[in-house]
């Protein structure tokens, strides 16, 4: 009787495990990838605006100051770097778009396979010059976005080989995440 009970228990456990394996398969089969990757130079259509990366750089603090002619930069450590991307935005709709809506709708941050950081729209406030209150239909504008690359967020090996890393600009997170590969100029 005891052996029979043990055998039955084992059979029941096995059935439960097989059932759960089936469930694991179905849960993962129903799930689809939620990320679309665009290659360097490709244009991304975001319902009403088209965006395209014009250029991207990794600057040291001094290089950043010199390049953008700014007085101070907000970094954690003096040897931190800044990842900058110039994005061309074009209004493909038939109504003018306010700059806040444009920027909110097209910039979530930057990421690589092992790192991610939100873009800081205020950091490039003095760099970006807007000549009108909104983006008129058919008009386009280059906008710089930047984020800090702090050395404490990277392993020593990655930090020393940052130029070998692949960085992406992420304009949208939901419902499908979009990432645009950056051609970071050395």
């Amino acid at each position: 009787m005891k052996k029979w009970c043990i055998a039955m228990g084992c059979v029941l456990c096995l059935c439960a495990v097989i059932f759960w394996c089936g469930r694991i398969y179905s849960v993962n089969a129903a799930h689809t990838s939620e990320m679309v990757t665009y290659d360097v130079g490709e244009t991304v259509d975001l319902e009403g605006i088209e965006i395209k990366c014009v250029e991207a750089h990794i600057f040291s603090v001094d290089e950043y100051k010199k390049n953008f002619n700014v007085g101070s930069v907000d970094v954690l450590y003096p040897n931190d770097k800044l990842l900058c991307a110039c994005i061309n935005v074009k209004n493909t709709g038939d109504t003018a778009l306010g700059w806040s809506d444009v920027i909110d709708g097209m910039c979530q941050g930057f990421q690589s396979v092992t790192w991610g950081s939100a873009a800081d729209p205020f950091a490039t406030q003095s760099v970006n010059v807007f000549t009108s209150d909104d983006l008129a239909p058919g008009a386009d504008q280059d906008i710089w976005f930047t984020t800090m690359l702090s050395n404490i967020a990277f392993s020593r090996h990655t930090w020393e080989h940052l130029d070998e890393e692949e960085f992406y600009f992420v304009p949208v997170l939901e419902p499908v995440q979009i990432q645009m590969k950056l051609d970071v100029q050395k």
Partner: protein
Amino acid sequence: MKIYGFEMGRAFRNAWFVASVAMGTAIGIADCMLCVRQYRNIGEKALIQTWLGTDYQFAYNSLFYVLLPLIACLPYAGSCFTDMKSGYERNICVKTSRLSYMAAKAVSVAASGAASVAIPLLVNLFVCAGLYPNKLPDKLSFLYAGIIDCDMFPRLFALHPVGYCLVFTLLDAVFGGLLGLVAMCVARWSGSRFSTIMGPFALYVFTGVIFEGDGTGTWSAMDMVNPLQNVVVYRYQMVTMYVGVCIIPLLLIYMWHRRRDIL
């Protein structure tokens, strides 16, 4: 070799092993149930967010990793003390050498400790895998464990989350086994089975708090074995800790038992 099988049998066929695994599994299931209650929509969450090791939302991760030494030592680590006090080891040592007995004891203590840590983590992973899809972690939504480039195994976490879970399960299991060896050492100076089991726990919590560090590198084992990696751990620190926790107890056990008069 017979002594190894005999000690393994004692280690795995006892109520304390079942109780220890049940305790760990209960923590994992409670975490899973809380996740299901909070997030009924399966699409909202990912497996790597809900696995006990990388779930930072609820207290169960901390509970499991604080209790890890108890879970590891409860099954069989205390037997070193009880065998000594009850005179059981004398009966064993008339049939086999003292060294073989201690080696078999060490292996079975380590194996039972490793298994009692690994089983709850694997069961939890298996249960969660049937509830939530194995989505890749999204770094910019900040809803996942913050494993980035400076942490250990960031690429594995980003590209193969289940692999990350399995690697940390293995590391935790090895650490559980080593804690069993520490308990065997403690048995030399402890006055009861309870203190033999509680010794590694006290050491783990005490050093865990003391050596937490300043966020850039830590010597706290409690932080090292937690897959959440709340504090940056350098690989050399982890290797040093594992080698140290392995060699020191083995050395002490050998030195103590080499001349001890069992018979």
